[in-house]
């Protein structure tokens, strides 16, 4: 049980050597060996999506993936999302819309959304919902997240578009719109 595995992991474009108990998951190795605590855990059973990271561009539940199988793979976590000191458009949109309330499910959702936009630069609302349906959020009611992904996708396409006023202020009183 306490056999150690030693390998070079490629995380957020940087290579690092790590040694860890062979049975440890990618989630544990990211958080404990690598100190990348941005990736969270909510169940450790693959049920909540909180620990989602990207492996070779695809969303993976890091609580169900063995770190020992990650040699040569490209791992992306929330810590690698920023562009220098600038927020990624997804991060900026989530911050501005309050799509992150407690912020605990946020890293996983950001990574899943990043994979979606890479595949579908113009995702429809149903596509966003489907892509993120494996990620639970207890705070937001999901709408601000969907709106945040729409906003970020538009910005990443180079469009000058912001969500309509009711996303920030609520709907106008009936009869006043």
């Amino acid at each position: 049980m306490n056999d150690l595995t030693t390998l070079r992991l490629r995380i957020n474009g940087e290579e690092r050597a790590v040694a860890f108990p062979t049975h440890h998951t990618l989630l544990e190795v990211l958080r404990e060996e690598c100190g990348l605590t941005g990736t969270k855990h909510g169940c450790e059973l693959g049920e909540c999506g909180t620990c989602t990271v990207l492996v070779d561009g695809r969303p993976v539940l890091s609580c169900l993936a063995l770190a020992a199988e990650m040699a040569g793979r490209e791992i992306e976590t929330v810590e690698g999302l920023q562009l220098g000191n600038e927020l990624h458009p997804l991060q900026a949109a989530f911050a501005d819309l309050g799509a992150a309330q407690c912020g605990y499910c946020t890293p996983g959702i950001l990574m899943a959304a990043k994979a979606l936009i890479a595949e579908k630069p113009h995702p429809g609302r149903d596509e966003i919902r489907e892509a993120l349906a494996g990620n639970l959020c207890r705070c937001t009611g999901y709408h601000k997240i969907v709106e945040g992904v729409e906003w970020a996708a538009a910005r990443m396409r180079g469009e000058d578009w912001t969500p309509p006023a009711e996303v920030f202020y609520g709907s106008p009183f009936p009869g006043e719109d």
Partner: protein
Amino acid sequence: MAEPVRKPEPEPQRELNLIGKPFRRVDGRAKVTGATKFADDLAFPRMCHVKLVRSRVPHALIRSIDVSEAERVPGFLGHLTGKETPIPFGILPVSQDEHALCPDRVRFVGDPVVAVAATTEDAAYEAALRVRVEYEPLPTISSIEEALATPEPRIQDYGDHGNVHKVVSMTFGDVEEGFAEADEIFEDVFFYEGNTHLPMEQHSAVAVPEDDDRVTLYSSTQTPHYVHRALAKVLELPASRIRVVACSNGGGFGGKSDPFNHEIVAAKMALKLGRPAKITLNREEVFYCHRGRHPVLMEVKTGVKRDGDGARITAQRLRTALDGGAYGSYGVASTYYTGALQTVTYELPAYQFEGVRTFTNKPPCGPKRGHGTPQPRFGFEVHLDKIAAKLGVNPADLRLGMLAEPETITANWLRIGSMGLRSCIEAVVAGSGFRERWGQLPEGRGLGLACGSYLCGAGLPIYWNHMPQSGVMLKLDRSGGVAVFCGETEIGQGSDSILAAVVAEVLGVSLSDIRLCVADTDLTPVDLGSYSSRVTLMVGNAALQAAERVREMIAKAVSEQLEIPASRLVFADRRVFDAQDPEKGASFQEAVIAAEARFGTLATAGSYIPPRSPGRYRGAGVGPSPAYSYTAAVVEVEVDPETGLWNPLHVWIAHDVGKSINPVLVLGQVEGSVYMGLGEVMMEEQAFRRLPRHLSSALVHKHPSVLEYKSPTFADMPPVTTYLIEDPDPRGPFGAKEVGQGPLLPVMPAVANAIYDAVGVRVDQVPIHPHMVLKALQAKAQGAEPRFGPQRFPAVDFGETLIVPTPEQGGDGTAINDYREKLRSGMRSASGTMMSREEALKKRKLAALTTDLKGAK
């Protein structure tokens, strides 16, 4: 009939720079970069890992504990048992019934018995598995009825009697006369199943021994102050040697507002081993911590008198029976809350409330979003829908015709301030087309309306004292930066942003000039925590006072320098300038430098104590609040009559928030509440089952996992149209009221009412599973009562009721059960509900004025 749609006119007030406009929350950046440190993200040199050995039997005496096998696990460091934590604790002073580790007896599957520590988490798990505990089983109690019928063995050795934890009976006004006066009497029985918070973050606590016999606890708690008190008691250390830091919570919803056994164990273990100790619960353990929604059986009886096109309530009697689980937790307060807020939405001239909380061998129930009020609100709002149907009145008109009035005292002596429910109803009715579409949609489609109200903070602290419920300190210096210190706890609701925005608004600086230090019992003034929707109003008011005090100092210094009166100075755009000549002024930094030179080091404090409530009877402490928020919702559903499957199609919701500090965050709270309410009515339940006899008949959680405890996903959420109604309350900072809990309340009953509109059947319980709709449809087809729900309320001896005359009876807020009291106030008990509505309203308004005058003394 309803008045035409109107929006309340905002009160004239000074121009606001920041408040009322959407802004990025101050913790927004850290939360999207992964930089926010939650408790489990912390690590310290030599930190050990702790695991709890939890009971696998629901009720038993502990015969023996054997840790010899655990000690052989490589990396094992030590263990604790209940012998080392003999002092009980609990959130309420009247329910000190929990132990960090059970000393001699376990009361539910999941009760902690032994704690083991090891150098790694793996080793701690392994050691925990090897601990042997022998039990002597005791009979178990699984439900309210069983608890009422089984006085022995007692699960707790305190409480009103047997396995009854608490009995409450209170009568406000002449209820019998009210029933006699009614044209019709309506009676219903409802059941609301328990459910749990399911925060995405599992609770975690890290304790660090410090120099000089001190200890620091970092924890995912909503109430660091109450954890601080519990630690001091159980560890037998002066509170001044304990520091509690609440990390950002990864969701709370009430589930992290008790002091928990694992927090105390972490601190005890750290002090025993002399090294940092971390304990992070796994998901199964979070289900055992629970403190979620109480399962509640309810019986509502209401007298109704026709009044023009509508009707009014002449009297109501509400009975509630709560399944409390194995410990007290907030349960005594929860019991009172199942009755307290029925009076603040609609005129209720006479009201009787009787409640009982029972002990069962299940994880303790406590406060979940709405604390004790969603269950009776569900009953009341479905009950009203039935009344409207029977009387042939539109449900919106029925409600609009009987709204409680602003600035009045209710029958149970709650003081209503601003009251925007009329605008809320009008908004959702107009938005959804309720008048045109309700009762007119094709079979299988329906609309339902419901309302609700919630506290803006509990009027009284959890333990009796005369100190502030919230404190804020400011430190300013020549850098031009403003440091804000406050014990408030960010659980995702945006409390940090409220605190920063209030200070920034008053001082005319930007949010980036503000530095926060929060939720640290060593460094920050006490704030009682993130519960009862108290933060915006109480922290906001404390921040307002602190900021206005330093503003005055700065204004004085600048006015002397510029030789203009301080009253002419404006604080805006990071400047302090002359209102009459805006060019003349100083940058905020220069202004602070002037003030620091004039007064010395700059620091101010502000604090907030809620106004005294007029209620003086036993139990009057639960329900009062400085202000009440109001919400109305319409839900549209589709129901498949073949299968009973139903789906929410659209939610229209209007919330009277008083004044939005940050509308985008207010919307997030409303939408999140709608989501959580839909989860409760669609699927969520904290349910239990008995194992077969050959497996001990033990009572176990049906599904302590995220996968099996169903909660809504992205795919389940319907569109939500939100209207923010701003009816500023003079008691809220800038007029603001709460938004975190109130918007959940109308969602469940609106769904039940919509299902009735869709297919003509009533499901009088929550959650509404498809099979329940189907059974009611089958009953309807067979000509039986088209209903699914509980049949009867159990027989309960509620004892002598507390008799409290209402304001219109000339009461003074006290009970008159005492014989001399009865004599003294005999004159006022007779003239009850026969009074004209106008006359009664006048008395309720007068009582409100009298209360304010007394408070002002």
